[in-house]
């Protein structure tokens, strides 16, 4: 069975490693393709059931390339019956609520700003930055878990467990950076929310 998955990578989203499986159809909109017109063309032509939106955001909007508004309040109809996961800051506050109230299956995101730490000496090699990885390893568990067939609530719990493991790791670390990484991890753990019904990617 062909399952459609829509991913939408811009900016920090390029940190994410893609999960490839034969049965999945993965569609990506990167850089200049991350614009509103292409996004809605994709939604209409491919009808994906799971969306990962990695732009930045605010309470009512998720932005794409060049800060173009991609999804905002008023677009809920297009997201009906879909699972939406976004790392965009604050989006769970208002936009996420509105999406699930108007027919979205569930919305997973952050109700405050997503925060992470980076090592300046690794900025040109972000995938080798274990400090940044602590955050993305945890939050990436959501999409990986959903794709593997776990429910949306289980997937959020796996991510929270991931954050807790990283918190313990840095709590035991003697690195000078550890106290700051710890604070940011706790912040993200408390900001991650699941709205709507417990859903499966099908």
């Amino acid at each position: 069975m062909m399952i459609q998955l829509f991913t939408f990578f811009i900016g920090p989203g390029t940190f994410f490693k893609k999960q490839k499986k034969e049965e999945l159809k993965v569609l990506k909109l990167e850089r200049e393709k991350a614009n509103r017109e292409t996004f809605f063309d994709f939604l209409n032509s491919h009808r994906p059931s799971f969306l990962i939106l990695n732009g930045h955001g605010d309470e009512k909007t998720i932005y794409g390339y060049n800060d173009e508004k991609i999804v905002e309040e008023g677009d809920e109809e297009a997201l009906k019956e879909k699972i939406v996961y976004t790392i965009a800051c604050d989006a769970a506050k208002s936009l996420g609520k509105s999406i699930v109230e108007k027919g979205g299956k569930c919305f997973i995101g952050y109700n405050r700003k997503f925060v992470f730490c980076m090592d300046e000496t690794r900025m040109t090699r972000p995938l080798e930055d274990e400090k940044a990885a602590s955050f993305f390893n945890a939050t990436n568990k959501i999409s990986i878990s959903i794709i593997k067939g776990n429910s949306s609530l289980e997937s959020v719990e796996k991510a929270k467990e991931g954050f807790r493991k990283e918190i313990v790791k840095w709590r035991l670390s003697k690195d000078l950076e550890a106290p700051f990484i710890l604070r940011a991890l706790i912040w993200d753990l408390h900001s991650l929310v699941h709205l709507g019904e417990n859903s499966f990617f099908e």
Partner: protein
Amino acid sequence: MKEEIPEIFWELVKARFERMPPNLRLVIGGVGSLKKEEILNHIEKKDEIGELLGRMEIEYLKLIKEEVESYEEALNNIARP
């Protein structure tokens, strides 16, 4: 309603971030990558980002408090005959 961050607490937040290693960057979505000096500036101004950093410190301390209380409870249980 959000509780206001007490004045004395701002000193604590500032003292904490003064010890941040210079190689570390704090990336805040929608704001960007912040160096130590920029962080201290936001804390000094008590602006939106300063407030976020203050609340981050409160949540950290609450977690430590819970941890200490759980140790206390465990120790009390061991001590009981």
